[in-house]
């Protein structure tokens, strides 16, 4: 299943320091702006495929949006606010998932970690009387630690990440159910003994009454992740391990440390999403987040990151998450039957993966 072509084996393209293909780069390290030939043009197009697709879906949404009194419902403040808010949790999880997938792994436990962290946030604030900062810190630490343990298991013990995180999914779900006693923990706000600090309610609100707070967090985390993935040595190591782990290890990349860190990031971000989730629903329920990992993987795949590892970008994932959010929204606004919606979303994911395959065979 490992992709056979190592990066940089295409004529006309050179390998950048982060291991991605760079169309237009000459072998001597210069950069040509104009594509020199069909192969490179296609490569360029595919490089921004996810953004292109996002713009396409956005335009499509505007075109097919129902209208009321001449106003395009899709573009209304309220609706766009709903779209970005609905996308935020999956988007944040997808950011963490991108790191894992770039490594050549997969993390199936993120949905369960979301549930665990939602329960933790609710329980600590309501039952144990923690303040917001203390509760959130503990919960984030739990998420990061859980992820780190999974990373260690897959790196040191050599168990495939699919299996480790599948087990992690069950463990996290079980822990969430035990911690909460199986029921959702309602969050009431106030100063009383069984109440959470009112400031936590900000997660359910919006800035200026317009931009939802979770969306701001999503964009902030996304931008930070883009920067990390482009600038840091850590990111280069991630791409290297994903591209060819043996070669990376032999070149001195600290594979164990990087893997543990990557899974810890995924767990941490899933915990962040869980805190937001509890704030949005005023409840920490152990059953929440079921299936979210699949939506996150879909966003990563649509964003152009290969499940085999080694190539991909964070910007692509953000575009993929937004694309899925817009798709969900226009299907709902146009009252497409729920079952047909599932069909369409599945086809979109297959199409995205197919395009990726096409890219490799054309260029």
């Amino acid at each position: 299943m490992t992709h056979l072509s190592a990066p940089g084996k295409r004529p006309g393209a050179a390998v950048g320091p982060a291991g991605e293909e760079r169309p237009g780069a000459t072998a001597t390290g210069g950069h040509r702006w104009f594509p020199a030939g069909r192969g490179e043009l296609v490569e360029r197009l595919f490089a921004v495929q996810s953004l292109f697709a996002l713009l396409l879906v956005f335009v499509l949404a505007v075109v097919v949006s129902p209208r009321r009194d001449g106003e395009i419902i899709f573009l209304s403040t309220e609706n766009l606010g709903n779209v970005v808010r609905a996308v935020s949790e999956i988007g944040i999880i997808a950011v963490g998932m991108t790191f894992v997938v770039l490594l050549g792994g997969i993390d199936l436990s993120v949905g369960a970690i979301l549930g665990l962290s939602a329960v933790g946030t609710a329980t600590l604030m309501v039952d144990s009387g923690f303040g917001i900062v203390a509760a959130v810190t503990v919960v984030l630490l739990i998420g990061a630690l859980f992820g780190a343990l999974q990373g260690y298991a897959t790196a040191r013990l050599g168990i495939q990440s699919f299996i480790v995180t599948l087990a992690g999914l069950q463990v996290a779900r079980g822990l969430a159910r035990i911690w909460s006693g199986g029921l959702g923990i309602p969050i009431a706000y106030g100063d009383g003994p069984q109440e959470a600090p009112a400031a936590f309610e900000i997660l359910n609100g919006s800035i200026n009454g317009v931009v939802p707070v979770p969306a701001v967090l999503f964009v902030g985390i996304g931008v930070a992740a883009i920067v990390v993935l482009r600038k840091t040595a850590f990111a280069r190591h991630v791409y290297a391990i994903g591209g060819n782990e043996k070669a990376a290890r032999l070149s001195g990349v600290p594979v164990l440390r990087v893997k543990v860190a990557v899974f810890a990031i995924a767990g941490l971000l899933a915990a962040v999403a869980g805190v937001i989730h509890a704030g949005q629903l005023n409840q920490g329920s152990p059953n929440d987040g079921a299936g979210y990992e699949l939506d996150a993987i879909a966003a990563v795949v649509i964003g152009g990151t290969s499940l085999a590892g080694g190539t991909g970008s964070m910007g692509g994932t953000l575009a993929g998450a937004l694309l899925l959010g817009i798709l969900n929204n226009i299907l709902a606004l146009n009252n497409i039957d729920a079952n047909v919606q599932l069909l369409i979303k599945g086809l979109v994911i297959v199409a995205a993966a197919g395009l990726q395959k096409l890219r490799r065979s054309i260029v």
Partner: protein
Amino acid sequence: MRTRPVLLALLCTGALVSSVACSVEKPSDGDAAAPNCGAGRDFLIGMSQANNAEPYRQVMNNDVQTAAAGVPGFTVVVADAAQDNSKQVADVENFLTQRVDLLIISPNEAKPLTAVVQKAYDRGVPVIVLDRKVEGEAYTAFIGGDNVAIGRAAGEFYAGTLLPDGGKVIEISGLPGSTPAAERAQGFREGIAGNPEIEIVASQPGDWLRDKGQSVADALLKTHPDAAAVYAHNDPMAEGAYLAAKAAGLHTTVKFTGIDALPVPSGGIKAVEQGRLAATFQYATGGREAVDLARRILVDCSTDVPRTTTLGTMQITSENAAETYARLGGVS
């Protein structure tokens, strides 16, 4: 360095977020104004359903749609949350964006949906809550069965008729966090209090689903092979438990009861008729009543509809199963 695609990505995200902040919107009228109503008009009704995968909810949807087809001008759109609270919140918000004239909702869980239902209610959209409750008072009307009474009726059936000499009972409960589950459990315990020989030895959630009920019953029947009966909170879970017992060879010694009694070929009444369930208790969907209330609010402009409508129940055993099925309009 490929900065251009990254910049494009940032631009796109920024464009999306700033278009949220700056989009021009015509001032919408009648957001929290007097409800629009009257005869001879078209109305859009949004129905937010908790989980289409449950047969009970499928029948509820059908009841609503069939009843709405009989009211000229009514269009009903059904959204399925698939047991995900976040999805159901998003469904209701999409309905609000579409400016539905009335919202019918059967919430997945009470607490997470309370805020968004209140939002709809505060906007002047009439809200009819079906079957499961939300917290607080921010809704127009609630239609549902009395789950405590149903549980109690079941308990009394066990105490007096099914296990008059006592015995061990396994309980398979509904989704924790949904009000019917808590109420059916509570009522049952009240009902069996009259017979101290009856003991609930185990209680596990089957989440209202047949497959979950089956796997849970598998485990519980292994732990308690001497159980006399299984009290399931709905018919699909009872049927699942029956299948589990059949696999263990216990289906002739253990008795099963459910709740719902849907008049459909795969429903509880048929199961009683065919001998798999000892009894089931009717839990009407309230779909027809909801549309009737909607008609009164939207077409007749009535402002005082009953706040709470409690649907009655009845006990179905092998004696009245066939006749009840026909009477409720079941197709053979």
